């Protein structure tokens, strides 16, 4: 058939993104913008990692450019990228028959399920550095993994209640699949509706892949990266250390104020910059990934550095959860 016909009808990369975003918006999701910091996966955005904590329900979707320095191939490998794009959907709590909803989203992007082989194969997710794990599936479409589907169970080492359902679409893979291409770089990113002129993924992103691969493998300054890591970590730790006093002080203050018949304001708690601390922890994580790509981390060091970053991220999650409880209680 007609893979030519299939190609013509297939969505461009940006149409794919529009369509999925529209689909999830129509199913009650808040559409958020990508997080403006380097992350390795959509899960690390605070819109997932922090929002899944605590009792507040939310449905949210966003595209997240995800950087994995070690996966860069200077733009020479047709299937591996330094930076790929995930479409991340968080459903907290997940609705009944959430898999059917997901399958509808595939239909929306032009996948006729009767013409393909689709399987949900066990694939559990774990992010030890975030004290986070969940169970779920990789969704296989004609032998290609196109989506990661996870029921979050723990985050920051804490049990979640309610849990969240996470759907992570690999946009490049899906576009490659829809457009029936062997190389990511040939994906049609956009098509001018007037002239029909096409921009490919390569046109838009190849130079980034070349330069960032070179930066992370060849140029990044190892001693300075270590220095960055130390600075980010130190500031993050300082912030985290301030929390107990503020939490405790606020509780006492509240008792005093309310004892005197006054009105307590929880602004001290609300304004505590847990998210600032989280960004510093994310910086550490990305710096670690760069050092790793540079081959600067020995196996022995690796465990130690990961434990340091885990300490930051799990610390942030604990404070965020407590902050939520204290503000909810007022």
């Amino acid at each position, binding site marked *: 058939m007609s893979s030519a016909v299939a190609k013509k009808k297939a969505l461009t990369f940006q149409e794919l993104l529009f369509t999925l975003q529209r689909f999830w918006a129509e199913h009650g999701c808040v559409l958020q913008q990508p997080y403006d910091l380097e992350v390795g996966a959509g899960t690390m955005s605070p819109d997932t990692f922090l929002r899944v904590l605590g009792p507040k329900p939310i449905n949210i979707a966003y595209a997240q450019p995800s950087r994995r320095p070690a996966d860069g191939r200077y733009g020479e490998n047709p299937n591996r990228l330094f930076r790929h794009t995930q479409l991340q959907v968080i459903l907290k709590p997940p609705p009944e*028959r959430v898999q059917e909803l997901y399958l509808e989203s595939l239909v929306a992007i032009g996948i006729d399920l009767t013409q393909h*082989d689709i399987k949900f194969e066990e694939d559990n997710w774990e992010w030890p550095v975030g004290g986070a794990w969940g169970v779920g599936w990789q969704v296989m479409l*004609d*032998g*290609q993994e196109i989506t990661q589907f996870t*029921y979050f169970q723990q985050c920051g080492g804490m*049990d979640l*209640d309610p849990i969240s359902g996470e759907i992570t679409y690999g946009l490049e893979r899906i576009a490659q699949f829809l457009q*029936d291409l062997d190389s990511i770089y040939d994906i049609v990113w956009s098509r001018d509706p007037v002239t029909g002129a096409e921009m490919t993924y390569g046109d838009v992103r190849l130079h980034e892949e070349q330069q960032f691969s070179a930066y992370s493998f060849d140029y990044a300054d190892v001693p300075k990266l270590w220095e960055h890591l130390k600075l980010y970590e130190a500031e993050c730790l300082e912030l985290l250390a301030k929390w107990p006093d503020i939490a405790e002080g606020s509780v006492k203050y509240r008792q005093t104020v309310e004892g005197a018949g006054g009105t307590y304001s929880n602004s001290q708690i609300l304004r505590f910059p847990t998210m600032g601390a989280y960004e510093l922890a994310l910086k550490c994580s990305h710096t670690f990934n760069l050092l790793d790509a540079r081959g600067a981390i020995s*196996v022995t060091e690796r465990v130690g550095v990961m434990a340091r970053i885990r300490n930051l991220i799990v610390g942030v999650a604990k404070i965020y959860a407590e902050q939520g409880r204290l503000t909810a209680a007022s």
Partner: protein
Amino acid sequence: MPDLLLEIGLEEVPARMIAGAQAELLKRTLVLLTREQLIDAEPTAKSYSTPRRLAVLIHDVKAQQSDITEEVTGPAVKIAFRDGKPTPAAEAFARKSGVAVADLKTIATPKGEYLAASILKKGRSAAEVIASELPKEIAAIHWAKNMYWRPGKPERFVRPVLWLVCLLGETVVPLEFAGKTAGRASYGHRVLSSGDPFEIVSPESYLAQLEGEFVLADVEVRRQKIRKSLDHVCRTVPGARWREDEALVDAVTHLTEWPDVLLGSFEPAYLELPEEVLVTVMRDHQKYFAVEDASGKLAAHFLTVTNIALDAKNTPIIRQGNERVLRARFNDARFFWEFDQRTPLVERIKLLENVTFQKDLGSYAAKSERVREICHILGTRVVGPDFQFDFNALLDAASFAKADLTTELVKEFTELQGIIGGLYAKSQGIREATADAIYDQYLPASASDTIPHSHEGCLLGLADRIDTISGMFGLGLEPTGSKDPFALRRAANAIVRILAESDLPLKLSEVIKASSPSPEVEAKVVAFFAERIDFYLREGHGQAYDVVKAVMAAGADNLRDLVARAEAVTAVRGSEDFLAVSAAFKRIKNILAQAEFVLDSGVALVPTNDTPERNLLRKFAELHAKVDELSQRHAYRQALETIAKIRPEVDAFFDQVMVNDPDPTIRKQRLTLLATVLSGFSGIADFSEIVTAG
């Protein structure tokens, strides 16, 4: 009597867990119904499963438990009645039993006369019992990994429950589990059915109705369909055969509700990559079956099992998708294969210093050093005019063995460790004996594997594993119960198999000692191996447990010899003479134990005048020489038959001689004789361990 159907509808259950859960659900249901006296002793029962459902079908369930009359004993008559009138004790008992005092009976017991009452226990209906008890059984199913999903976390189960069907005959039993109430609505195939629920009419119609909705719920039917389709589709390529792979057939059976098979191809140029790599990509990463040509060589085709019916329209689309994925995977593998070769194994040995084996045992470089040393000790021990191998190749193999852990290919395909090292070694011009030993070092990894093909490979495999075992035991990291995080049992099983199945002239104790354990660790390791040897003889050779005990009691250091002895004992154990001799030896052992007799080798046997005693000694001396000679030649079966020949003399001795003679000298003499016979004939097995039924 009605049939019972239970179906649990689930989001896709991990393939690896389905078979176990299906069996457990059936077992739990049967145990429950038996306990509640709702089924006969030998019920007809079936269980079914797909990725999205578990089901059981039990035939002929009683609709109602029978009423039971129970006799309850009350107070003693002398307390219950005073002066012929009932006391409060009698009245209370009557009230509790729900009968009038006049209806109470008197029964005679060894303790005297007591009051008794017959109580009628009304049987409950099956529906009532099932609704209240079956959910507990469902909840108790063991899952390797489970989850919670409902707010408040009321239960944990493998995946969210979507629906429940429970029918007793045509009637719904509305049992409740995980927030669902059972009805008769089930769901068909995700894509091929309409997606709407449909009603199960009765347990009998279940399978056929599901089939109408494109679900083959019977696992064996699905498995056969897959096998047939694999054969059938393969036939479209002349001379081609699919590589048999039971585990893969099992996996895809549990991944599909309506399986079909599709043939795909890849560019023959990829066949230049090692077959091991290609097959691993196809099998482990894509769940594809490899195809070979008539000569057994890998062909440029693969087979994939789909969860949808294939037709002229969707086949080319699905094929194209799968072929593209495989091409990308093969490209990756080729990239790694070529990239890795830029750093030869010789240079990679140095890199192992940065790869931790275990934090207290150091890096893989340190481990390689130790393994090389152990290889040196073992090699020195076995080398000789009757046993030749390439000593330098062995030592080189020990140095190179772990170098492939630093390659991208092994990082990507960890299951190919060793194999990749062997392949790189060969392509980098390292001599063949070394490359082969590296390649085979992890054999046998499972019961179906062979041991390494060469002496060098066997020695390397022994050295690597005993280093791990002694090292971990030294740190107190031995396996406990079901926990064996370092797979030490598997490592020990492999050592046992290599020693028992190769022709290495090595004893287990020599292998253990070569790893230089401390005396305490050595003792623990020896005890650990005893369990593994026991396991090997029972599971690997199907030996009965008493035979295993008997032969191990006679020594378990030379494992090849141990297996030969076990086989000989099993071969003769049915003979009447042998059983009689075993029984006699058991008697001897008991007599010696009761007398707390210890054989003093300094005491010479002086035959007395009693004929049976003299005869026994004479016969023993005659047979013992023969048994020794036969044992030397490992002719254990004949040796055992020879031992059995002592039966008449032993029988006569026990018939006519009293061991416990009042004269202590004579008694000691007789005990010495018996102890000598026992110890002289216990070199092959301790016969007193043999179970002589009757």
